[in-house]
């Protein structure tokens, strides 16, 4: 409790310093930060909107992490999911809701495949996924770039973006005029489902055990290869659904930079949530609130966007160092006991 208090104080002090040095009034900034979050319905809904992709990718990352697959490829999987959703939503001659449902499924498959490849290479050939998933992010960005300048480009102009997806093939808004959309509900449902799968089903058992000790799992007859690949597919699939949700729920048009770094932020979400699906939801909402508050601050006062990155990074560093006192004591105790010897 004390530690939490101290850490909060430290974050506040850093925030105040950064704002002061940037030449703004910290009290006013604080006012807008809180106002942005609680001041109106719109801000509140925005938090859910921003949390949605984080929940999806965060869940994906947590599944991957708990099976020992270090998936830094959320960004690329998100893009592949968005790409496939866009193709279905724009091209498929079918009623809107059918396109939406197919998009949801297809985005899962596309993101899943994008994670499956590095996972397969890891399992079969021992290629480290850390580097490989990063490369796959760039390759996905490349494919997206080609798509929106080629076969998916909006024919009505020459902009590097797809045509706009009609309302009928979008995720319905839940609370007009805010942007809150069905994607948030789907994300929370995914979290519940994932929690159930990981804790209560034999499938989850296989995933967990295969991640903990492959060899033992294999020797006792658990289908290890299948489990690890499946975990990667689920992981990538959820990230792909984030792409679908951003596309059909928010942007309704495929364009560059759709993700805006959610694939990386989600890694921090999974870390803070300790890979627990329900905690992922809570942490994502926290991250989103931080962003929404900070954005309001920026809009009202022109406080530079970089402050948010610094603060987020700082908070994560603080959380990573939360054991500092314990470890410091451990080291110190060792030294003291040595003195006594």
């Amino acid at each position, binding site marked *: 409790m004390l530690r939490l208090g101290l850490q909060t104080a430290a974050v506040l002090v850093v925030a105040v310093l950064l704002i002061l040095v*940037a030449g*703004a009034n910290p009290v006013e900034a604080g006012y*807008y930060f809180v106002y942005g979050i609680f001041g109106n319905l719109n801000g509140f809904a925005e938090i859910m909107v921003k949390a949605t992709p984080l929940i999806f990718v965060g869940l994906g990352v947590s599944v991957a992490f708990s099976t020992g697959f270090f998936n830094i490829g959320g960004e690329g999987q998100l893009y592949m999911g968005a790409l496939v959703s866009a193709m279905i939503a724009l091209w498929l001659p079918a009623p809107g809701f059918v396109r939406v449902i197919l998009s949801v499924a297809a985005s899962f498959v596309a993101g899943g495949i994008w994670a499956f490849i590095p996972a397969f290479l890891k399992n079969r050939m021992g290629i480290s996924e850390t580097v490989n998933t990063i490369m796959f992010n760039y390759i996905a960005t490349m494919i997206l770039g080609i798509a929106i300048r080629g076969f998916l480009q909006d024919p009505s102009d*020459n902009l*590097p973006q797809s045509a*706009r997806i009609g309302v009928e093939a979008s995720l319905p808004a839940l609370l007009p005029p805010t942007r809150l959309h069905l994607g948030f509900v789907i994300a929370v449902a995914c979290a519940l489902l994932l929690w159930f799968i990981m804790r209560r089903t034999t499938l989850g058992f296989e995933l967990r055990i295969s991640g903990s000790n492959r060899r033992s799992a294999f020797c006792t007859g658990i289908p290890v290869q299948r489990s690890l690949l499946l975990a990667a597919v689920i992981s990538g699939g959820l990230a792909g659904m984030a792409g679908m949700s951003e596309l059909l729920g928010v942007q309704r048009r495929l364009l560059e930079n759709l993700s805006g770094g959610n694939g990386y932020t989600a890694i921090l979400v999974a870390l803070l949530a300790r890979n627990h699906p329900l905690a992922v939801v809570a942490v994502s909402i926290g991250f989103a609130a931080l962003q929404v508050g900070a954005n309001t601050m*920026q809009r009202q*006062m*022109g406080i*530079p966007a970089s402050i948010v990155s610094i603060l987020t990074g700082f908070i994560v560093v603080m959380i990573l160092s939360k054991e500092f006192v314990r470890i410091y004591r451990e080291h110190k105790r060792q030294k003291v006991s040595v003195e006594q010897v």
Partner: protein
Amino acid sequence: ACGGSGSGGSASGSGSSGSAGAGEYDAKVALCLVSPANDGAWSSYAYNAVMAAKELYNIDVKYTENVKPTDMEAVFTDYAAQGFDLIIGHSFSFGDAALAVAERYPDVSFAIIDGTVEADNVASYNLKTQESGYIQGVLAAAMSKTGKIGAVAGVEGPAIIKVAEAYKVGARAQNPDIEVMTAYTGSFDDAAKSKEAAQAMIDKGADIIMGGANQSNAGMIKACEEAGVYCMGELDQQSLAPQNVLLCNLSDIENLVAVAVKEVVEGTFSGGIHEYGYADNVLSLTDYGELDGEVPQEVKDLVTETMEKIKSGEIEVPRIEQITND
């Protein structure tokens, strides 16, 4: 020239709370940017323009930098709800957000720079930048001794492509045998790539290069400086290498943003797609700076003449938004 975002705090005016009454000002203007306000190019133009307008008129100005595509609608909604009179989206990608929010806030004016959207209260303010590409092509072709010139562009998008393509057209109009090399680095950030692309052209014999990659032009200019060849940049990039940068497209976008602000303040704003070029005095070029003595008088005359022809409509510069391969 570049103010930087740090002065942002002061830009917001003094610390009145969120519901500042519009009454104190003639207008409230919000600017939304896709990159940092101090990127030294694209976003800096717009930032500088609204700050200049603030000096000129009695207006309140706020801005947001680094807006991600998925946040655009949220930012617009927020400003519109606060009763801003003009919301400027400084990239085509704000188009959808503008249309969506404009419907809910019919009293607010939306200006999209370099956009494709229009509505009663939404206007796209576009530049005929192809005209400046054309002129630079003429100049490059006239100045080149090797018969080879180049253009290094950033991300492939119509706004960039149309300049590079017009550059080819202008150069060929001047010298049908000229060889024009173009390269896209795929980034406005990666100056090292811009430098490498320019170097590749220099190695192939190019002796004058045009830049169309915003802040990363710095790399191209660096390559030209090292190789001792001429180049052309944007905004105030002449200062990066005064002995090499012949001229720059001057502050064109700054003028465009200024026009939008002016229209709103003066009550002449109208929805639609507005295009501006040299004839409107929105586009212009810098002078030759320290290289004034190096440019032959007949070349200077040629440039002036071409510009006049464009203004008068005698030359209609084509708008080519797809890369051509010849």
